[in-house]
């Protein structure tokens, strides 16, 4: 039992001080008295005992068990009264008044004088000029109707806004063309509160949605409810309404043509193969003999012979009618391109073998032409390997193996084309830079390179069959040259991604 006042303080028997009692929980004593003797724990009387004692003595309710000192304390009647007052929220002592009446420190009554002795000022008796001005102002404002006090009357809110709907000029919207907002999508089967089973994704699929990109993820996952009463409120209702509002006033609107047709109808109708007949469909002859892929083919001017070059290092000359292999030239390197001399009197084959050009006597035709060809295919004096400071673009060298001529190019040549007369021919050296397109004359065994500047890498070059014109195809353009003046006449733009070959109609 504790009390604030020190007068009625009885020193407690226990001297351990204000420590938690549970520290002595396991001990037999609960502390020490003033002479350092242990205070033994005493058991509290049991419930039955306390009940009996309460029946026996009337003042038993005044007894309180003091845990700290392990003893029973009996409180006095006065103390009980104090406790009951405190429990009611009153002051502990009955004769204390917490709210006494206020007593002023100074008595004003019958003192005779005010605190200040100054006379009452004049303005207390004269009406205010400024107030009058203000009042006049207000009166004026009220009279003129500037200030109104009553609430404005409610006018009827709605009336017949649209008269009869006739198509007059008034019924047309003014200003810019109005683009109505697209209507919100109508709900499909999957939005039903009770959709068919096939619309409900499996748990696995729903888990997979989490792995998707957020914009690919489906916005709405169908659910199935067994009855209408079990459908909850849609929590995104406000959010979706708001999104629609945002779309309506923030999204730029344009008219877009939307074609809802079959994509097939956009493709042009290709003619069927039947309509394109007759075209060769059955194999008539097979020229067998090459051991590797055939890279190039050329037909002789008379149409009796064809020559083929293959990457197995051979050139074969065939008779067209029979498919008999007339001759095999084993040139020993890949044949890239092959071309017959267009003149029937000169059965000469030009072939790009490896990186150089090889002129061969095909050894077809009568003896007279054979003799002339042999003469033609003989270089009197081979071009020197190095004249002066620069390596020559082409060297004419006799080829003893095939009785022909080899034109050794400074870089790898890719194609060869004859002029229709059969005397001139041209080779293209794609990486040749300023010496990329070469003109050769067979009769004089002479080469030159008239076109120094080309717009890009040359791909092919051809002669015009009748006129003195020359065409050089680079990857994007076709340059047309006048052969006599050796200058550009025209530049044709193909618009293609890449030109791979060029050919001119034989009629020009």
């Amino acid at each position, binding site marked *: 039992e504790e009390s604030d006042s020190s007068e009625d303080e009885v020193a407690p028997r226990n001297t351990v001080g204000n420590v938690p009692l549970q520290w002595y929980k396991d001990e037999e004593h609960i502390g020490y008295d003033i002479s350092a003797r242990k205070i033994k724990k005493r058991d509290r009387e049991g419930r039955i005992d306390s009940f009996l004692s309460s029946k026996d003595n009337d003042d038993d309710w005044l007894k309180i068990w003091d845990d700290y000192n392990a003893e029973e304390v009996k409180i006095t009647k006065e103390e009980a009264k104090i406790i009951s007052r405190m429990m009611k929220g009153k002051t502990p002592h009955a004769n204390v008044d917490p709210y006494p009446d206020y007593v002023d420190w100074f008595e004003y009554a019958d003192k005779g004088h005010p605190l200040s002795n100054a006379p009452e000022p004049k303005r207390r008796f004269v009406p205010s000029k400024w107030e009058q001005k203000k009042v006049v102002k207000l009166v004026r404002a009220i009279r003129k109707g500037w200030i109104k006090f009553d609430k404005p009357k409610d006018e009827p809110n709605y009336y017949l806004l649209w008269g009869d709907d006739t198509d007059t000029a008034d019924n047309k919207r003014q200003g810019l063309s109005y683009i109505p907002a697209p209507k919100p999508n109508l709900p499909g089967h999957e939005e039903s509160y009770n959709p068919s089973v096939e619309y409900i994704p499996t748990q696995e699929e729903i888990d997979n949605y989490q792995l998707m990109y957020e914009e690919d993820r489906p916005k709405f996952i169908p659910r199935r409810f067994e009855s209408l009463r079990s459908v909850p409120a849609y929590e995104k*209702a406000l959010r979706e309404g708001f999104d629609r509002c945002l779309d309506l006033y923030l999204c730029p609107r344009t008219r877009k043509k939307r074609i809802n047709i079959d994509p097939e109808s956009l493709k042009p109708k290709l003619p069927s193969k039947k309509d394109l007949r007759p075209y060769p469909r059955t194999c008539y002859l097979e020229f067998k003999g090459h051991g590797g892929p055939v890279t190039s083919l050329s037909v002789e001017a008379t149409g009796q012979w064809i020559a083929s070059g293959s990457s197995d290092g051979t050139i074969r000359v065939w008779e067209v009618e029979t498919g008999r292999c007339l001759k095999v030239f084993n040139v020993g390197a890949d044949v890239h391109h092959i071309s017959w001399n267009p003149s029937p009197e000169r059965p000469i084959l030009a072939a790009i073998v490896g990186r150089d050009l090889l002129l061969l006597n095909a050894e077809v035709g009568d003896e007279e032409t054979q003799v002339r060809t042999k003469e033609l295919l003989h270089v009197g004096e081979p071009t020197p390997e190095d004249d002066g400071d620069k390596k020559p673009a082409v060297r004419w060298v006799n080829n003893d193996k095939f009785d022909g001529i080899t034109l050794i190019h400074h870089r790898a040549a890719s194609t060869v084309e004859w002029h229709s007369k059969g005397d001139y021919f041209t080779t293209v050296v794609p990486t040749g830079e300023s010496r990329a397109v070469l003109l050769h004359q067979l009769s004089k065994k002479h080469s030159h390179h008239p076109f120094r500047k080309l717009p890009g890498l040359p791909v092919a070059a051809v002669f015009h069959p009748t006129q003195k014109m020359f065409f050089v195809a680079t990857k994007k353009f076709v340059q047309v040259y006048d052969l006599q003046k050796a200058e550009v006449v025209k530049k044709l733009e193909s618009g293609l991604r890449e030109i791979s070959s060029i050919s001119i109609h034989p009629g020009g």
Partner: protein
Amino acid sequence: MPKHYRPAGKKKEGNAAKYITRTKAVKYLQISLAVFRKLCILKGVFPREPKKKVEGNHKTYYHMKDIAFLAHDPLIEKFREIKVHRKKVKKAMAKKNRDLADRLLNRPPTYKLDRLIIERYPSFVDALRDLDDCLTMVHLFAALPAIEGERVQVQRIHNCRRLSHEWQAYISRTNSLRKTFISVKGIYYQAEVQGQKITWLTPHALQQVLTDDVDFNVMLTFLEFYETLLGFVNFKLYHSINVNYPPILDPRLEALAAELYALSRYMSSGRLPGNPESNGLIEDKETENNKESSKTDESELRLAQLQHQLPANEPGALMHLVEESTADDTEEESVKECRTLFKDLKFYLSREVPRESLLFIIPAFGGTVSWEGEGSPFDETDQDITHQIVDRPTQSHVFLSRHYVQPQWIFDCVNILKVIPTDDYIVGRVPPPHISPFVDNDKEGHIPDYAVTLEGYKSAGQNQVMPLPGLGDEDLGNSIVEAKSEHNEFAKKKKELEMQEKKYHEELKMEIEGTTFSNLSNKKADSAADVADEDEAQAAIDQAEKDADDIAKSVVSRRKRGLIEAMQISNDRKKSKVELLKQRKKAAESSASAKAKRR
């Protein structure tokens, strides 16, 4: 010189002059962004997409004419006035001039939007065309909690409720409701007014939560416009059926939250009392009608038939009937169908079903309806009730004379315009899947089973032959599926025929050559190889087709090719969706059959 250089003193041209970014527009109009936003919403001004975005790709562009249109609007001045007024009140409050503040608060500057409505929708049909969003929004706000101190004023919510009920009452009254659909989001309705299809969504009648992720200022501005618009539209619609607007409702019914019923009562009794001039005109017309109709026996008969359905003491009941009977001759077939769907049926709603929705739908299709609760027109014990709508696991007390069905039955009936058998919808059962009436099944590529069944009911009704439900729908389903797959089948059959022909020829040849059996058996051994060859041949054909396709594609221009590709992608996506649905269906069916087996 930069590409877009414009010499000093030269005017802007082209897109630079025609379009203006939002920031610049706000500066040009000398208003705040909030006010600009409000103006744009009210005036219906939206950003446009210029061909060339001069100021940058990420900016919003407005057309200069639109901005000029805003600049000349008196609303800007009104908004300024309101701002000034607010400042005045604040100042008066700060100076403790209560008097002035009260006086100011008494007369705040107001504005009206009727001018804007006629400006945006010069003809009534224009307004109807744009009514979808308006109705959805008003219905959404009508479902929000009307609590003081929330972000939405209670009065606005009540106004929304009133407007939505008025609209529903009109639709119900004129039988112009066409389709309904219960979705997870709420209930969709589609009505046809003056040839315009109007679709709107009402949330389920449950407590909505005001979330924080929306800007209520924007929504309330939209709502402000929509409320006005719907008010005027309602006025016009009510005017067109000769009913006074705004309606005066029975306060007792209103208090019981049965506004819709109150409205319908008002409408059936509602003439134009306050408008003697037009009233006279209408009466003249009516007498004429009366004369005409009196000639025909049929209408008289109907008059007698219908008489007992309405309380006799209701004013104008007779007149209303006359009008109805005469109107029948002229009105369209579809409206008539809608009017007579639930003609002789009497419904009773239990307290757990969505009352407002059903009170709207059932009368719209000619049914009579009552509900559990005060103010209802008739009791549960009424002997004439044919259907009771319940949504509970079991029904304890059952009247034998009536069907006990789940609410979905009403919606499905309405969508196919036929009263369908109630077997599947009986209390306690899981109802059949609810099918959306808004989907074009053929276009979608996948038809749910129940849609086929419903279609069966519909056509069965039309043929006046009632087949057994199981048998009928199967047949129908097959026929539809066949029709769909016929095209593919045809191609396959043709191929098969060709093969058979080839085989036959081969056999003939063999006979002619006189192959012996032993030879034949040898040949048979090769037949396995033949099959492989056939596969190869098929692959070759496919390849050839693909090649032809590629060639055709390579011929068209790049732009068109892109278009074709995009279309193909979308088609593929659609196809894969349908494929997924079929797969799921198969899985569900197999699991169901497995369950059945286990049993």
